[in-house]
């Protein structure tokens, strides 16, 4: 008991209620705003997390926010609640992984890593599932659009933040996330060799322009 004006146990209870009722993960700041002045949200969250650590419902950090979720080992009980996730093709999963680990990454870079052009629907599917978003434009000639992952991506794969992508640190250390290709690198690159053949490009660019204008709101729409 310090000089806290709002006692710890009340803070914990309030957080339990707020997190339980929340429609999605809540940040510590969101939570603090909903509590009386003087509540030590950080400490209470840590205490709650410990309290629920071995329960059937645990307090998890996803996308830098807090959320109650059922314990991983009890997933087998949840047959009725389970939603068969939409099956992503190998190409889509690979593209998603490249976007996740290399972000911000351009379409051309994705194609270079995979050694094959992105087929029409791949990015669409990932967009539609709200796993990826437009991040901005690369400051290189042509100002290509870059892609990154959404908060929903982190929520879906139970990741506290992008820093927690499995194996990312090792990959980075081994130079495997380096997008710079040596200048004398001349492996045939069918993907890069004919971007202008894709008739969808112009249409797509329009959409991209549009999306970028509304970049802020698009981002807010993630939630």
């Amino acid at each position: 008991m310090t000089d806290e004006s709002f006692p710890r146990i009340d803070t914990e209870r309030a957080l339990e209620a707020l997190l339980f009722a929340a429609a999605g993960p809540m940040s510590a700041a969101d939570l603090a705003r909903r509590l009386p002045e003087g509540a030590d949200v950080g400490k209470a969250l840590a205490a709650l997390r410990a309290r629920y650590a071995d329960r059937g419902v645990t307090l998890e950090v996803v996308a830098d926010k807090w959320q109650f979720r059922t314990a991983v080992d009890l997933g087998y009980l949840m047959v009725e609640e389970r939603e068969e996730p939409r099956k992503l093709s190998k190409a889509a999963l690979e593209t998603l992984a490249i976007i996740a680990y290399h972000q911000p990454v351009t379409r051309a870079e994705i194609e270079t890593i995979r050694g094959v052009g992105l087929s029409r629907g791949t990015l669409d599917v990932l967009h539609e599932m709200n796993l990826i978003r437009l991040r901005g434009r690369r400051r290189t000639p042509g100002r290509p659009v870059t892609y990154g992952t959404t908060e929903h991506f982190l929520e879906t794969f139970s990741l506290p933040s992008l820093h927690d992508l499995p194996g990312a640190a090792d990959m980075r250390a081994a130079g495997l996330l380096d997008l710079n290709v040596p200048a004398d690198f001349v492996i045939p690159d069918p993907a890069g060799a004919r971007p202008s053949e894709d008739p969808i490009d112009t249409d797509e660019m329009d959409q991209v322009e549009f999306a970028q204008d509304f970049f802020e709101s698009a981002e807010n729409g993630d939630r």
Partner: protein
Amino acid sequence: MVTRGGDNVRLENEVRQHRLDFSSDAVPDTEIEADDALVLDLDGYEGPLHVLLVLARQQKVDLLKISITRLAEQYLGFIQQARKLRFSLAADYLVMASWLAYLKSRLLLPVPERKPTDEPEPEELAAALAFRLKKLEAIRKAVEAITSRPQLKRDVFARGDPEARVILPSSRLDVSLFDLMGAYVTQRQREIARHYDPSMRVEAYPLEDARDHLRDVLPELKEWTALDEIAPRPVGEGGPKRASYVASTLSASLELTKEGLMQVQQLGTFETLYMRQRPPLVEGR
């Protein structure tokens, strides 16, 4: 793009057919027996790089230490087999094949005494290819790592209790005084428009008069003169408005210009219009 997609589909179909023929459903995704390279599950292996990665794994060493010459042979073997079975391979596969054949030959040839300066060392190319495969493999591993995370709505479940929450509409209004003014003026102006009475004829400066006036003043218009100065001023009350004089004079000037009697010019949008008598084509004639 379209043809490539078509090829892929066809390729996949043929592979599937092939598999059905030999009733070997259980073709592993990634591990392929060395002598069974043809029975590649091409499902999801969209490009030559993916095939190379599968083949490279057969060497069972770190990708950075693979033998590129052997890899080239494996790949060429794969292409040969595929063609023997009349798989229609996308152009990418053949481009890769010829490049690998070239790389292999350069790796095997004795190092020339005078190196051509414009070509990279074959060893560098080989290393770059190996690194590229390593990158792709890393991404494949990343896919496994990500998809084996507890997935929301598959392994873990969250539930909001939105019924418990009472959402009050915001008491703030997203509206400005300017919006209010705008809304007011729009309506008042609509109201004015509604009360417009067509029986009240607007006096206009007749086009014929404007033309006659312009012809009269034309001989004096040796220099560029602003439209504003040329158009007559309204006289007395109740006659046409100044705007009408200007508009009719402009119309008339365009007619006269079309007839080749005068010239009109404007330096930019919304700039002053200048007009003058058309100078004779040849001075002094």
